[in-house]
Structures are given as C-alpha cells and as structure tokens.
C-alpha cells in the first residue's frame, strides 16, 4: 500500500492531542498500576479502550466540517482516503500502546514494581503480555463499529441515527452476554460470543467502507 505522507499527516492532525493524552495516560497507568494487568477484568483499561476508540472515530468522522470537505474536494480517491483514515487510526492506537508494550515486555514495569516492593512482581510479569494482545483485540472489535457509526450518521438518507442505535444495541448485548457467560464459565460459549462480536465488527467495517465510497460531501 502506497502511503501519501502529506495526506496521512493531514488526516492525523485532529488526532494529535488525543494521541498525546491517551499515550501519556496509558503509559502512566501501565507503569504505576500495582496489580497484575488483566484486560477484561480491569474495568479502567476497558473504559479507556472504549473511550479512545470512540474519540478516534468521532474526530475522524467529522466529514461535515469545512476542513474534511476541503480534503475530499482535493481529488483523492475514496479508497485512498479510507485507507489513510485507518492508517491514522492505527497510528493513534500504536502511539498509545507501543510505549506500554515496551514497559511490559522489556520488562521495565516489572522492575519498577519490584523496586516499589510490590509482592506480585516479578512473579506475575510473564502473564501480562496477554493484556496487550487483548486490548488490541478489543480495539479491533470496536473501531470498525465506531467508524461505521460516524460514517452512517453523515449519510444524507433517512435512518442516519440507526448507526448510533446499533452501537447502543451492540454494547447492551455485549454487557448482558458477558455478565451471563462469565458467571457460568462456559469456555465454548465465551469463545463463540467473541467470534460473534468479531464477525459483527468485520461486517460493519465492510459496510463502513461501502458507505464511505458513497458519502456525500457538502450536502
């Protein structure tokens, strides 16, 4: 894939402040959190990923603004623009999580916590790499959903709120099923639920791409 750097920096521009804040918060949290990091059991991390994903897609989904309209009127193909929207998304996620990964994997975090006389470390440190993979998996589930939501809400036809309703339904179902299945500890059911949500996200990602190709600018 050919990267057009001026285009990338243009699209990334609204994410700069968000990325700086999210990166600082995540790094500080990973370094200072005194309990072993377990992604889905740590609600702070879950809320952080949801908020970060939501804000990324919100900032990149302002296609009704003058500056986005300007970008879309410059002659770039819709495919190229969509690829660079995702590239900017990826850049924001990586800029947030690569420092965390370095802290966990080097293992600077483990040494720091050990130095702080935390009894869990370095004993629990090897299990924390899962925190990274699970958080990134969660981003992978949420970002197509949120990108779809904002593209959908920018479409001129009726039912533009359906994107927002879909997101609410997704989260209500997710919370309900998670609560039920976790309490029963059924591995097969958990895996099925995960796969189901990943499939939904993938489908919404494709729909988002399809809608973006038909997105009207300046309507």
């Amino acid at each position, binding site marked *: 894939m050919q990267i057009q750097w001026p285009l990338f920096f243009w699209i990334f521009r609204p994410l700069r402040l968000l990325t700086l804040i999210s990166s600082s918060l995540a790094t500080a949290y990973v370094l200072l959190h005194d309990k072993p990091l377990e992604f889905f059991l740590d609600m702070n991390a879950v809320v952080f990923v949801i908020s970060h994903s939501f804000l990324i897609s919100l900032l990149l989904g302002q296609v009704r603004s003058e500056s986005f309209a*300007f970008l879309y009127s410059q002659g770039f193909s*819709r495919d190229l623009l969509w690829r660079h929207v995702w590239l900017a998304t990826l850049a924001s996620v990586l800029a947030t999580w690569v420092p965390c990964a370095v802290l966990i994997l080097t293992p600077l975090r483990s040494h720091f916590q050990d130095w702080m006389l935390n009894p869990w470390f370095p004993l629990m440190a090897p299990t924390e790499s899962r925190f990274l993979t699970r958080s990134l998996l969660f981003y992978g589930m949420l970002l197509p959903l949120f990108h779809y939501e904002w593209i959908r809400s920018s479409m001129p036809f009726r039912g533009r709120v359906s994107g927002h309703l879909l997101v609410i339904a997704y989260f209500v179902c997710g919370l309900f099923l998670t609560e039920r299945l976790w309490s029963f500890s059924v591995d097969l059911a958990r895996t099925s639920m995960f796969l189901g949500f990943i499939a939904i996200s993938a489908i919404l990602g494709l729909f988002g791409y399809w809608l973006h190709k038909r997105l009207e600018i300046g309507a």
Partner: protein
Amino acid sequence: MTESNTVMETVDLTRDFGGKVVLEDVSLTVGSGEILALLGPNGVGKSTLMKLISGLLMPSRGEAKLWGESCWPPSVEMYRVACILDGMSPPSGTRVREIMSLKSCVSPRFDWKLATSLCEQHQISTASRWRTLSKGQKRWTLLVAAIASGADLLVLDEPVDGLDVATRLELYGLLREQSNDRGVTSIIASHIIADVERIADDVVILANGRVRLHSPLEQLRDEVFEVELPLETDDSVISPMAEVISSRRASDALIAVIRFRSLHLAEQEFPGEISRRRVSLEDLYLAYTQPQQPQAPAEQQGLANERSL
C-alpha cells in the same frame, strides 16, 4: 464539438434535498479548453451543480460525466479536476506549504515553481498559517494550488471572492493562458458579470434550478439586442425571427430584449423601423432572471404570448 473533445457532460441532471428540487434536468456540454461561466441568482443551484460535477454529491436523477466517465460514484481520475468550492477550507492551523503538499501528492503534474512564485508575488509565504492570511490571500492560495496542480478541469465557485481588481485580472490572464497553452477547461460560477464577460467563452444562466440559457458569448453579442418595435407589433410577427427574452411597453413603443433567430428576416419585416442597441451581459442576465414586472390588464393582453415565445 466532437465527442472526444467533450470534457464535461450532464444529461437531465437533477438533485433534490429532502424533496426540494434544487437542480432540474440540467443538460450541458463543455469542450476542452473552454471557459464556461455559470450565472444565476443565489440559491439557484450553481454550487450544487459544481459539487455534482466534482463527484461530491450524488444526482437524484440523470448523470454528470467527465471525459465520458460517470462522476458518481467517482470513477474518473479526480486529480485531473481541481475544485474550489463554497464552504470548504483547510483547518486554521494549516500552513500554505501543507496545502501545496497535499495537492502535489494527488497531482503528479503539480508545478512547485509556479506555485511558489505566484504566492510570493502576493506576499504569501509558504510558511504562513491559514488563519493569518487575509480573505483575498486565502482565495489566492487556493487558486494557486488549483492552477499549479496541472489539472485539466478547474471547477471554481466564486473564485474572485475577496480579490482586488488587479488580482482578478491576473487570475483571468492565468486562466486564459492555461486554456490556450494546455487546453485546460474552466467552469466558473460568479456574480461579477462584467468579469465574466471579459473571460468566458460560453455562458450558462440558471434560473429556478433550470438552464435558461447556454450559448457562446460571442454568439450572444451578435444576436441579442434591445429593440424598440412599433407599439402594435403582434407576437406572431416576432416569433419566426426572434425569441423575446423580456419586454415592456413604453408610451410609444414596445421595448424588448430579444434574441434574433434571423436578423435578415427582421430587417425585411421592419425596414428602417427597428431601433436596436447591443445589450450587456448584465442586462441579458437581468432579463433572464428577474421576474417580469406586473402589467396593467391592457398591457398583459398584448404581451401574454411573448413570454411563451
């Protein structure tokens, strides 16, 4: 105009917003190297037409094509089109250099030397931020980016908004140069009709979302006149030789803006009787777009058919 020479074509192009028809059955053709002026009152659909041509809006009906390819969904190489459209501007913190860089990464023919020199001539540094530029400088920056991009079609909505007279003339010179040297086609929407008269090859007047006039400007100069006809002139006499665009009754004559179909026939019909004078594009524009003044009943009877001519 040959088919291969056609740059832009619209066929029955229609667009509505929430049921309100803004543009209706617009059929136009623009050839390579032409400068087409789009005229019309505010809200008549000029900007909508430009967005449809630029592949930013979807037609409700009909089709717009660039070089034979449909504009929606955008399938042509859109880098061949440079647009300056209403309500679209870069973020306030953007530098002029970044705007040029953005354009250069979509346009392989972008001429950095031309862009830099045109900016410098107007005291615009490429390091300047967008918010620090004056209205005219902002407009000039966008125009420079469009012209330096090497695009084959320029779609310019109110391009001279905020520009002083000298800069306007410089722009027209550049557009004419691009047209003559590279065959660049320009579609310009403007309210400054005197300027349009200076630069345009073809003129389109839109009224109520429809094309009221599409004609080469040169042809209009030869064919459209304000005439004074004998008061008792019957419309059945006028219609074979001319289209009445607007008319009013003076005390002793019928004064009409008409477009002659046959000047020869008119001179035969009214030997020595027609007093005619050329009309400016501004007068013609007003004749096409202004609603006719209400007439007294007796006058309305005589003129009823003229509107339908």
